[in-house]
């Protein structure tokens, strides 16, 4: 297992206040499980102590997220997107292949490649820790969600939450639910909204989400090519080194020096690729998920609107037939209330979303440019 080193890479801008501060102070990677140590500092009266830590696994984060989504009370909020599952498979596969191919390469090559793969593993590890942390911080920063009971249990209960992952049946149910939801979403999206703000937001979010998806995919590909090129430079450096040691002419010193240079270049190129990955790709991926969450919010609102309109129609019908009027009235009022509540909070949420997004992009783009400059100057 590997301990989580100090500074965390937060790629979203958040306001934290002293009343509730959450972070992941440590993380352990055990075969295929990652154990996060969630550390809380709070002055809120809800908690027994002011500072405490618990150990949580990925599934427990998902459980918390799902509990928010399923809670009707939170229909009017953008639910912070769940962190992606820690995925070390690719890295592990590469390490395994390296181990198998150990006989076919020189000792130096083997050590070098091993170091690189280990660095890659570490980078993935750091990323997954950061994403889990961001999720918790978003929840802690949200004025309503931070008061959620499940959240407090998550933070404080120092035993295993016994959240089992969904079994096959449940996963199938989820799948169908999603299908229904997207079909419904299409229907609902067709309904034109009276409110200009929401109408605009709807169009905007739809387009934005698609474009972020595209940009995220392309940036991933770009970074992968970059990494491949860096790998090649690594191999070239090794070959040059071997040539240098074997050669008996003046070329040998020359080759050795050039080999060093290529080594340096490679290190820089990998770092550039890693930085791009962090600042650009991760940013885009995060906003992909957030924009999806925002879309979900709009969907819920539209759903509520449709329900409201249906309730109105039902009320009219009931009044016309003069039957079950009271029932229809209550139902209609409920819908109306729900809809208005959602609309109100949604407005604020969406505005916040924009502010956050702008700030995050700014921060990351600036850092990206600065890092690129730094690396280019080194050469």
């Amino acid at each position, binding site marked *: 297992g590997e301990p989580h080193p100090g500074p965390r890479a937060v790629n979203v801008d958040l306001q934290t206040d002293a009343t509730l501060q959450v972070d992941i102070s440590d993380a352990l990677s055990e075969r295929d499980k990652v154990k996060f140590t969630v550390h809380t500092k709070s002055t809120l009266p809800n908690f027994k102590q002011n500072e405490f830590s618990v150990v949580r696994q990925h599934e427990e984060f998902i459980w918390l997220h799902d509990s928010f989504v399923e809670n009707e009370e939170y229909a009017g909020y953008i639910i912070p997107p769940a962190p992606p599952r820690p995925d070390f498979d690719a890295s592990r596969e590469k390490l395994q292949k390296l181990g198998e191919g150990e006989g076919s390469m020189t000792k130096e090559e083997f050590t070098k490649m091993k170091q690189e793969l280990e660095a890659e593993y570490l980078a993935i590890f750091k990323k997954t820790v950061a994403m889990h942390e961001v999720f918790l911080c978003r929840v802690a920063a949200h004025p309503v969600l931070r008061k959620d009971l499940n959240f407090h249990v998550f933070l404080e209960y120092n035993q295993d939450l016994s959240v089992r992952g969904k079994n096959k049946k449940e996963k199938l149910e989820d799948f169908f639910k999603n299908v229904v939801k997207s079909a419904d979403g299409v229907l609902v999206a067709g309904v034109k909204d009276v409110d200009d703000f929401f109408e605009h937001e709807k169009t905007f979010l739809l387009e934005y989400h698609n*474009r972020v998806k595209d940009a995220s995919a392309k940036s991933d590909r770009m970074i992968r090519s970059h990494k491949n*090129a860096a790998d090649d430079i690594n191999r*070239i450096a090794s070959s040059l080194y071997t040539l240098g040691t074997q050669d008996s002419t003046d070329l040998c010193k*020359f080759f050795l020096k050039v080999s060093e240079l290529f080594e340096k270049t490679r290190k820089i190129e990998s770092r550039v690729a890693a930085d791009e990955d962090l600042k650009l790709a991760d940013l885009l991926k995060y906003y992909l998920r957030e924009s999806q969450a925002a879309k979900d919010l709009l969907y819920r609102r539209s759903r509520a609107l449709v329900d409201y309109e249906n309730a109105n129609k039902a009320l009219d019908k009931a009044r016309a037939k003069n039957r079950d009027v009271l029932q229809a009235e209550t139902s209609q009022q409920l819908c109306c209330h729900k809809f208005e509540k959602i609309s109100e909070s949604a407005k604020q949420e969406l505005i916040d979303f924009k502010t956050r997004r702008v700030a995050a992009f*700014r921060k990351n783009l600036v850092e990206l440019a600065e890092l690129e*400059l730094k690396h*280019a100057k080194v050469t």
Partner: protein
Amino acid sequence: MTALGKPPDSPPQLSLCQSAVRQCVCVCVSVSYPPSSQSTMADTARDPPPELSDFQELQDGEDLFPEPSAPLESGPASLPAEDISTNSNGPKQDSLFDDDPEDLFAEATEEVSLDSPERDVLLSDGPSPAITPITPPCSLITPHIDMFTHCSFDEIEEEEGGDSFDMHISVSDPEKVGDGMNAYMAYKVSTKTSMSLFRSQDFSVKRRFSDFLGLHSKLASKYLHIGYIVPPAPEKSIVGMTKVKVGKEDQSSNEFVEKRRSALERYLMRTVKHPTLLKDPDVLQFLESSELPRAVSTQALSSAGILRMVNKAAEAVNKMTIKMNESDAWFEEKQQHFDNLDLQLRKLHASVESLVCHRRELSVNTALFAKSAAMLGNSEDHTALSRALSQLAEVEEKIDQLHQDQANADFYCFSELLGDYVRLITAVKGVFDHRMKTWQKWQDGQILLQKKREAEAKLQFNNKPEKLQQAKDEMRELEGKVQQGERDFELISKTIRKEVSRFEKERVKDFKTIIIKYLESLVQTQQKLIKYWDAFLPEAKAIS
């Protein structure tokens, strides 16, 4: 300048005529030569003999040798005859010449081309025996005195001759000639030189790819088996050429033509840098004459091509069966060295090619990302962020172009050089193989001789006079062959040593230049990157 570089101001010496050249040539070949200028003459003997074809060419082209066989029998041949008889029968003199036409023109090669008289002058210093003078046309001799500087006397370390190697060949202006499947690309080969070897200082001809291949195959057949490292010609590519023929004017066929053009240029430069090959008449003809006979046997799918392939396979099998007693540690070490080098260069070449591929990929992906970022910027409704994203898109687009350029530099600079050297090393190994074959021939001759000796002894014992005489004759012939074999072997070994040292020097030079150029391009790329990101930074900061 060597001792032999004396200007031909002494006609009597000069009168050691052309015809005498042949005799002198034979004389030089024999081991027991008058000691006076043994060293220098012996060197000229080491020059590679051309094939019979050259002899023909010469006969046609020049009538400097008016009566090929006459002088041989005459009195002047006394001295040479004497010498020759030491290693073969007197009466067999003619047949000797006929059998080994190569020896006949042992020295006549490079110097001979259009200016064989120099040959005379060279040789003149050597043998001062009384040979019937046949006055050569003096006028032929005078103008090409600076030829001396290029007559490489092999003993001396190969520098670029007395005056510097001033020759520049460029291959340019590829243009498509003809249509359909019979179309071909014609390249303009321009030579700029101040060397007197050529008729003029600046000239150009049109050549097509098969002409280059023809040149290479001629040079290879002449020089490879005696130990000269002949630079390999660029490879044929049926796919690439077909695309060009069919007329697809797209990126890949343009790239193919450009790749081929630069490969042809490098091939020619390498060939002329070799002092021996430079003077070869075929090379000179290739560079100078406006019309060249079409080299048909270079077609890939022709019968000649197939024959070549079969031969190559047979050779490979033979190589495996020859086990040579290596007496010279130098050769063993060098062979090992080249084997290692081959391995490493191939690996390096593969890595560089992979890098080129990935960088091209990176460039494509960056362009895609740039477009995507631009779209994102468009849909973003926060103005400053939108502008920043568009700027990002522009930066990335420029970077993509940068990557593309870098990939090209990677390729043309580095990768092609490595490819060339991988092929060159194959040629070097081929030369070593030829040495083995020569040794084998020599050994075989010795074994045969031994058998014949035993047979002769038996015959003597059985007292059969006619057969005995025949046996004795055969033996003498064989002995000659064996000695020739030994000489060949030593010759090739010596040539190889020289060639290898020259090759290594060239290699060092080439690699240094190319790698430095490549590194410079890397630095440039980084500088441009700095410029672009510097421009972007304030935009990013301006997002409020």
